[in-house]
């Protein structure tokens, strides 16, 4: 009988070996880029000339970014899009979750699945589908509007001329916001549904005994119980909204649309680095964006913090 040599890890090193794939990947793709972009924010660099061409410039990149009107324009766009797509997400998702929770029994999962589907669909596919829908001359949206405008009485409410959704500055933002809203409303609905299931039934029973109506139950029981989840959902929306990139990038062909009306800060950052070849300024922009994200997250935290007796 021959004994095969067995490769054995000592029990003490097992946790480290098992953890190492994540730790390594996190170091390479998480920590390193973070540190590198911080370092880059203080350098000027011609990337095609190699790493040696970096020169320290102090706070120049930050000074440039703060006085750059395009940066502020992109921030305004981002804030607009985050509000216009974020607020309705929650205003719709909460009642929708409540409705699904109370009204669907057997088909519940199918309904949730349908609402969740956009969230797990590839952004590129979504953006391509919507750019087809939004197409000025051949898009389904404009075709429907046109046929609606032919209706006998209500026709006057709808525009006769095709609307240029993605090529007019005033239309780009609503169009992008609609896509973002459509994409994430299902995700938030699932969050709120999960939270709804944790509210004990007996509270509702007690309320019914006390004579509270459906609306009162929603307002005084459901909504306060959902508060922790609202905090979580709003934080995700704030962070996600401020980093919005894919949807406007693809819908506007990478340029941000006419007069850059749909150019978010994340897009401007990307373009500064890879189109305009200014990695230093792009890194500075990314850290400024981080400051805004941190600030708004902190404010969200303040707004939802449980108030103690003294406050």
């Amino acid at each position: 009988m021959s004994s095969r040599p067995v490769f054995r890890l000592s029990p003490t090193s097992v946790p480290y070996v098992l953890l190492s794939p994540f730790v390594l990947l996190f170091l390479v793709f998480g920590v390193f880029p973070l540190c590198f972009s911080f370092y880059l924010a203080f350098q000027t660099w011609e990337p095609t000339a190699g790493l040696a061409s970096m020169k320290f410039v102090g706070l120049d990149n930050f000074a440039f970014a703060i006085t750059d009107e395009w940066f502020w324009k992109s921030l305004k766009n981002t804030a607009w899009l985050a509000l216009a797509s974020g607020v309705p997400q929650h205003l719709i998702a909460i009642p929708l979750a409540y409705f699904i929770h109370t009204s669907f029994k057997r088909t519940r999962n199918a309904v949730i699945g349908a609402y969740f589907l956009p969230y797990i669909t590839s952004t590129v596919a979504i953006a391509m589908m919507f750019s087809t829908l939004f197409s000025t001359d051949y898009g389904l949206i404009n075709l429907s509007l046109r046929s609606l405008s032919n209706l006998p009485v209500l026709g006057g409410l709808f525009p006769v001329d095709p609307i240029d959704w993605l090529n007019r500055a005033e239309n780009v933002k609503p169009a992008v916001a609609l896509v973002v809203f459509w994409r994430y409303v299902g995700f938030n609905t699932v969050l709120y549904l999960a939270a709804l299931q944790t509210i004990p039934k007996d509270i509702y029973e007690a309320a019914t005994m006390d004579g509270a109506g459906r609306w009162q139950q929603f307002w005084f029981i459901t909504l306060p119980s959902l508060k922790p989840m609202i905090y979580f959902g709003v934080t995700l929306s704030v962070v996600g909204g401020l980093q919005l990139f894919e949807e406007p990038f693809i819908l506007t062909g990478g340029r941000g649309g006419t007069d850059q009306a749909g150019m978010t800060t994340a897009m401007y950052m990307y373009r500064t680095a890879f189109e305009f070849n200014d990695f230093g300024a792009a890194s500075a922009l990314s850290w400024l964006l981080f400051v805004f994200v941190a600030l708004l997250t902190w404010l969200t935290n303040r707004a939802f913090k449980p108030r103690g007796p003294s406050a």
Partner: protein
Amino acid sequence: MRSATQKFKTAARSWAGLLLAGGCITFAQAQQSITVAAYPAVDEIAKAAVAQWKKKYPTVEVKVVSRAFADHHTAMTTALSTSSNLPDVMVVEFGYVARFAEGGGLEDLGIAPYGIKAQQARFVPFAFRQATAASGAVVAVPADIGPGTLLYRTDILKKAGVSEAELAQSWDAYVAAGVKIKAATGAYLVAHARDVKDIVIRSDIKPGEGLYIDAKGRVLVDSPRFVRAFELAKKVRDGKLDGKINAWSNEWSEGFKRGTIATQMSGAWLAGHLNNWLAPDTKGLWRASQLPEKAWGSWGGSFYAIPKGAKNKALAWDFIQMMTLDPQMQLSAFKSQDAFPALVDVHNDAFFDQPIEFLGGQKARLLWREASRKINAVDVHKLDPIAEEIINTEMDKVLDQGKDVRTALADAKALLERRVKR
């Protein structure tokens, strides 16, 4: 008991070992091969050339790494910036040549051991100049070019009673023809008013002047050619002569298919794209003419370069010579992929005299050949991409929000000067 650091080191060592083993395998395979990094359709041309390459080097593999157009240049920028994963042969598109030249990460092919300068006369002048950096280094060899012409629909013109001479005589005549076309057929003159601006700002550039910024860093965007370009584009928009359609969009190809776009200024290759997939059913309805007011311009083109960090430079150079200096190779790329040859040697080939079926039997290659000799090389500046974005944004404001042309150009100048001063 060993310390935690030691344990971590052991773990790290086993991982490092694995990575090293992987690296050795790759290295062993890389012994007898060269890599060519390219984008469509240059990748097809390079792949088609492998057969001939094998006749000379039966044992040397050619690996063509193909990426989408934008990804290719992002990947090449990253490779140059870190001097890692560099291909032996790098295909560079027209718009990126100067940018890469500036960085100094590409070999100077003008001097020994390459010496392409001795062959300069064999190339279309503007393409060769485009690859010459301010320092005099020739960083790439032109393979194909995109001499610009105006493609137009004869059927639409006939319906509107507009002759070719009328269309292309001057920019004003071009716009006037657009009014007639719109009135008679409802078709747009151009896809986007911006297209007119793009070519007018490129015409009438004095030698050494640069497009947006001159060599001394002076911003030129309020010069007469910009004023004229903006005013013409505004005239096109005000007359509702453009479809506000961006190139390569769904509307663009639908516009060609349905005949709602009467003319398109573009490189020679567009006729091929129209024939192959954009609008094959419009065969015979298109013709080419020189651009309005004999504005000579070009759209795109490909170059071959060797990165300074490449491993097999001698083989890479042989490959590049085969692709750019071999008449047969240049002609076959022209025939199969509509890659208009940058090599002047082949410009007198019988293929140029053949009629093009898609263009109703017109001998359009002669037009493109004529254009290729007249196009001027435009000096490039590293801020050109941002300058283009600034100009396009101000153009949007003029077209969509009725901003005054001179105010818009003054604003563009201020924005750009701020960048130049950095």
